[in-house]
């Protein structure tokens, strides 16, 4: 599987192997923060950025630290530690030097630490034994895919604000159902490329 063109991986991780719509990872913030387009755009951008960064770091840590010492089985813990530290660091830097960016997505950064899509991408990268370039493409693609999904969802939810939804289904309930429908729609892309 590891000789796929990185560009193909990029496109595939946006459409056919979308983190949310085909792997159902990163659902909690996807459901919680998809009420408005503006905030979900902020969160989506932050996720894309952190995904790219952590994938690169975790690739290096895995191949140059864990593999040489035969500690591959520790990857879960190690990945989580690096993700947490990276997010913390990014938050500090953004808060200090990019105040405008901080005000638009700063508060979402801590939320990302516990986004399972981030850990998921790092683990998939290992399982599918990607090369460095492939891993980077996969990270960026997955982030963009996540951004696309949450943007689409928030668009739908904004339209839905005035719709008569049965009481028991309001909020997370209807969101999950719509996510399912969106996932069905995204199956339409699955014939294009396949990476999993």
């Amino acid at each position, binding site marked *: 599987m590891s000789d796929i063109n990185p560009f193909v991986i990029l496109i595939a991780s946006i459409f056919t192997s979308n983190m949310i719509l085909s792997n159902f990872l990163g659902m909690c913030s996807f459901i919680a923060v998809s009420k408005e387009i503006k905030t979900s755009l902020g969160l989506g951008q932050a996720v894309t950025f952190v995904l790219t960064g952590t994938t690169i770091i975790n690739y290096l840590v895995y191949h140059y*630290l864990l593999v040489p*010492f*035969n*500690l591959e089985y*520790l990857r879960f813990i*190690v990945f989580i530690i690096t993700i947490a*530290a990276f997010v913390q660091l990014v938050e500090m830097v953004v808060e200090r030097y990019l*105040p405008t960016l901080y*005000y638009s997505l700063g508060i979402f950064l801590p939320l990302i630490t516990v986004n399972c899509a981030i850990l998921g991408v790092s683990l998939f990268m290992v399982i599918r034994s990607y090369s460095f370039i492939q891993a980077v493409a996969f990270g960026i693609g997955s982030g963009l895919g996540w951004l696309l999904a949450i943007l689409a969802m928030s668009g739908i939810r904004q339209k839905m604000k005035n719709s008569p939804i049965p009481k028991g289904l309001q909020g997370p309930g209807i969101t999950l159902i719509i996510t399912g429908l969106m996932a069905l729609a995204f199956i339409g892309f699955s014939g294009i490329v396949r990476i999993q």
Partner: protein
Amino acid sequence: MINILVTIGVISGLSTILALLLTIADVYIADYGEKKIIINGEKELIVDGGNTLLSSLVGSSIFIPSACGGKGSCGYCKCKINNGAGPVLATELSYLTDEDQKNNVRLSCQVKVKEDMEIEIPEELFNVKQFRAIVEEAQDLTDKIKFLRFKIIDGQEISFKAGQYVQLIAPAYPGNKEEVYRAYSIASSTKHQDYIDLIIGYVEGGILTTYVHKHLSKGDEVSFNGPYGDFYLQNTDAEMVMVAVGTGMAPIRSILYEMLDKGINRRAVYFFGARSKDDLFMLDEMKMLEENLYDFKFIPTLSRPQEEDDWEGAKGRVTDAIAEYLDEAPNREAYLCGSAPMIDSTVKSLLTKGFSEDRIFYDKFE
């Protein structure tokens, strides 16, 4: 064996490097230097930047009320920031009304001091201080209500308005894991700035009331901060109607002593509700006040007088006493203190007696 050591080494090495990186970043990147906070256009504070406004102010002994301790979940620490706060954060939005946002009102526990700021704080809050005191007097008024006198021992003086309250701090004690604050009205005269009196009832299972009733005795040290509150004696000469139940006696007592000490000559009547004669207290003091005040009448009313009480005074709840003893008259002020249901029903019955709503002042005990 070597495997285990290598594993531990790698993991701790990695964690150490990351922790080190974060620490260095915290020292160099999150260092905002000293920032200036200008309060109400006159007072200047120099603080280390990077912390929240709330903690910076507390660090400079300015206590903005906050019940959640800066977690952004109570919305009490609102503060007007005219300059230097940056845009409103999403974490504040649920606590700020549209009007708040128009007036630059922000949550001081969420806003960080990253540049010089200009803020506005109500003048009263400058008065709020933290006090250390010892229990000088502790006596049982009834089997459920205790009178306490806290003598301030840290050299400060408390200046407050008659009717305001302080927050008493209960430290951790067996059965209570962490520090807890609760509000109690000051019952003493504003003339005495070196001590305060509190009247505290016992609530089954209440953290602070248990502390006061079971753990606190004469000579013990306590801490409190204050004064707070917008329930206090107004500076008018209208006739006054005061209504209180149980420990609601406290702020009313303070108001009565204020009138006595400052020679305020206003007609006043005070309805005090209790269950039976055993629940009445401070009758001597009320008698003394009736004799010495300009025109003051104390009307205790018992909701369940016992047979052996031999009670000839007013019967029923305070609202019944109001219906029976209070005439309709314009231009009066009312001061109420007690539980929420008691306040709500009393306000209703006062409105039927010709009171206007904006002249009914009350302190609801939650």
